[in-house]
């Protein structure tokens, strides 16, 4: 079986102008939603209390909300979670209430009205911790970015490192844009997924870059665009199949992993989709834009300078 019997190289680079414009537009839309709607940060980052409870029968969300409001928690956000029997209660952080005790108070209230409520999960994050997590997340993102640029610089050339990281940060922004647009909860595990995508989608660029380097050595007569077109065409089969396989795993998590893994898998899915696009159609045009040339790899043989000896 072979899906990709391509006889001639596809002239990707001649579409470069269109593909980069498309991604620029997507990128700007993502920025727009990030700026206007913002990310819906989860309790990990904002602090607060999340309680997941399970009822023996389908739960009456409105009634739960009422009970909580009557017991001094009018700002509790109550919604179904996964099934009609599972309820998720979110309570933002308050200055004067001892946060750690809040979950007990909620459970007491719920148990008064229905003795069969089962506590499934409690997460309480104080304000100090939330700030630390935001800070550490930003630091991790920085470290990954610099680490990748540095590695690609050493292995290839600075132009490659720069092109790869721009293409992949563009993926990250688009993932975040999706999360902002749909107001999906941005939690610690989503952050982990975003960073994993960053490392993973750089793979994609690396594979193409490897071919480009090889082609620079083998296709002595070819133009830069021809070289890149050839590299992309010849790695395309591998790109689609690899991503397809990874996506099968991620898809299994998306549908079978339950609520906890759902958004983690969602971030990965978006990241994988866009990383195919960006590493092929953004990173490579960027390389041309940065002026990559054969001389970056094949150093002109230095002729021994003539010396004048006394």
């Amino acid at each position, binding site marked *: *079986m072979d899906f990709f019997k391509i006889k001639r190289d596809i002239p990707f680079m001649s579409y470069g102008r269109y593909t980069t414009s498309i991604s620029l537009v997507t990128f700007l839309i993502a920025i727009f939603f990030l700026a206007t709607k913002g990310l819906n940060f989860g309790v990990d980052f904002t602090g607060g209390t999340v309680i*997941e409870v*399970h009822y023996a029968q389908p739960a009456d969300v409105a009634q739960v909300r009422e009970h909580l409001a009557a017991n001094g928690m009018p700002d509790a956000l109550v919604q179904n979670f996964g099934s009609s029997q599972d309820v998720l209660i979110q309570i933002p952080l308050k200055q004067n209430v001892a946060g*750690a*005790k809040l*979950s*007990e108070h909620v459970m007491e209230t719920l148990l008064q009205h229905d003795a069969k409520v*089962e*506590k*499934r*999960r*409690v*997460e*309480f*994050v*104080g304000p*100090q*911790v939330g700030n*630390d997590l935001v800070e*550490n*997340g930003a630091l*991790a993102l920085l*470290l*990954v970015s610099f*680490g*990748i640029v540095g*590695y690609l610089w050493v292995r290839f050339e600075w132009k490659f490192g720069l092109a790869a990281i721009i293409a992949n940060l563009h993926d990250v922004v688009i993932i975040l844009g999706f999360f902002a647009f749909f107001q999906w909860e941005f939690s*610690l*595990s989503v952050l*982990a997924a975003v*960073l*994993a995508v960053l*490392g*993973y989608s*750089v*793979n994609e660029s*690396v*594979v193409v870059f*490897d071919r480009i380097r*090889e082609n620079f050595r083998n296709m002595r007569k070819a133009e830069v665009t021809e070289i890149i077109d050839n590299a992309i065409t*010849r*790695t395309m089969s*591998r790109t689609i*199949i*690899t991503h*397809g*396989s*990874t996506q*099968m*795993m*991620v898809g*299994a*998590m998306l549908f*079978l*992993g*339950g609520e*906890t*893994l759902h958004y*983690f898998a969602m971030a*990965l899915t978006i990241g994988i989709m866009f990383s195919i696009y960006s590493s092929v159609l953004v990173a490579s045009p960027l390389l041309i834009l940065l002026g990559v040339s054969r001389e970056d790899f094949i150093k002109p043989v230095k002729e021994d300078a003539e010396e004048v000896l006394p």
Partner: protein
Amino acid sequence: MNRYPLWKYLLILAVVLVGLVYTLPNFYGESPAVQVSPLRASIKADDALLANVGEVLKTNGINSELAALDGNSVKVRFGDTDSQLKAKDVLHAKLGEDYVVALNLLPRSPQWLTSLHALPMYLGLDLRGGVHFLLQVDMKAAMDKALEGAASDIRGDLREQNIAYAGITREGAALQIRFRDAAARTKGEAELKQRFNDYALSSKDEGGEFLLRAVLKPEAERRIQDSAVQQNLLTLRNRVNELGVTEPVIQQQGVDRVVVQLAGVQDTARAKDILGRTATLEVRMVDEEHQAVEGVAPPFGTEMFRERNGGFLLVKKQVILTGERISDAQPGFDNRTNEAAVHINLDGVGARKFKDATRENVGKRMAIILFEKGKGEIVTAPVIREEIGGGRVQISGQMDTVEAQDTSLLLRAGALAAPMEIVEERTVGPSLGKENITRGFDSTKVGFIMVSIFMIAYYLMFGTISVLALGANLLLLVALLSMMQATLTLPGMAGIALTLGMAIDANVLINERIRDELRNGVSPQAAIHAGYDRAFGTILDSNVTTLIAGIALFMFGSGPIKGFAVVLCLGILTSMFSAILISRALVNLIYGRKARLASVSIG
């Protein structure tokens, strides 16, 4: 061209076999068990305890599968939960005084695996249910306490030395002592410099007043903060013992935080109460007119307490001092005899009370009693040799250095260094934990099967080889995690699934390269060789970038994210091994023998 020497095959075989052995324990599951561990540090779990536990179970007709000494506890495994619960009740009734009897789960893997240290992965709280707390030590309160203690000590000291001063005030992190004249200040400075060397002194004249500023030195400040955390850790450890939790995790995190993880605990309200409570310490006089007899009611006005070495003492009910008056306790040595000793610092009020009490009771014994869980225990009961003033007390005699260290820690623990606040809580119910395991396992399984079917359909024989390599990768990853006794969490399981999905990349790269070479008309043997050869550099590069992301996640991630990062990093390493070496070995085994290969099955 495509042949491995025998040793390479053997090496790969050995690695896979080791992987198999260490993965195996994860399949046996766990049996109900009871764990008996000492309540106090002074009692050790030993063979006598093991025999004792066996005896108790036998007389009550409870069948146990296996009983063993493990670290500082005795663990007994049972066939079913019924006998486990029965055994817990029986053992608690017999040994509850001195030992914690807790329910536990023990791996059911056979003895020979356990003796190889092949143990199953440790399940995280999100998979087994339990509670995770992050507590923050209030450092400001610790510093406040230290400064207040110092202020009252300085007051007492100056008064004792008859140095006239006008007053002491606190200004932020410094103490300001006002003197009436320069001479008094000079004298005061000399005195304080000698006795309070944790403080940097500087003099200043302001508005006709002669001021002396005492600022805590940075190293002293660090020491106070450090000892506050250490002290709270110790106190927490003692308290968690009461909860009857097996293998609690109590660790310092960062400068001022403590992580407490209690597996299987559902009653979080009680857990919070116990963690938040303070132990108290009391100093009382020993009643030496009566003899302490176990089981006999103590005479009027006295109480009977157990000593640390096991004996009993009668102690008067009147309290001389409580633990709040102790500002510090440090292990050290007696200046004269060079014996191990504990040096205690009392605050101003405490010093005065202590001075009065010692003056009136020279030659008698006093007892220092630690109350926890409403039960008192005599830490030490020294004889008073002389009147002790100045708030500096030394306890010595019949102590080795380790005991001196323990006692000083206990004394400090009695007076909690600084309050703690719960800043993070994560509780997972047991049913959710079970569900999480199923979910994580199912998604990995389904994903793996889908990828396998696709690879075999697309690459035929080479696809089959890739799938075998991927299976070996999973095996090695699980074995490595089990060997390291890493904690498996739900994000960790997601990490396993993700690394498998990503690991297939290496095989796809190789297979595509071989196809490429074949298309270019290269002979099959040469194509295989070139395919592996050329793909290697690419595989290395792409794995290093993912590794960078994994390391960053490990460095900056907390809790569950760290688990994900560990799996990601290890998975990259095992995938390199399996995708390159194992798959190559299989290819060589299948195709390498034939000198003239007409075609290969790569689809």
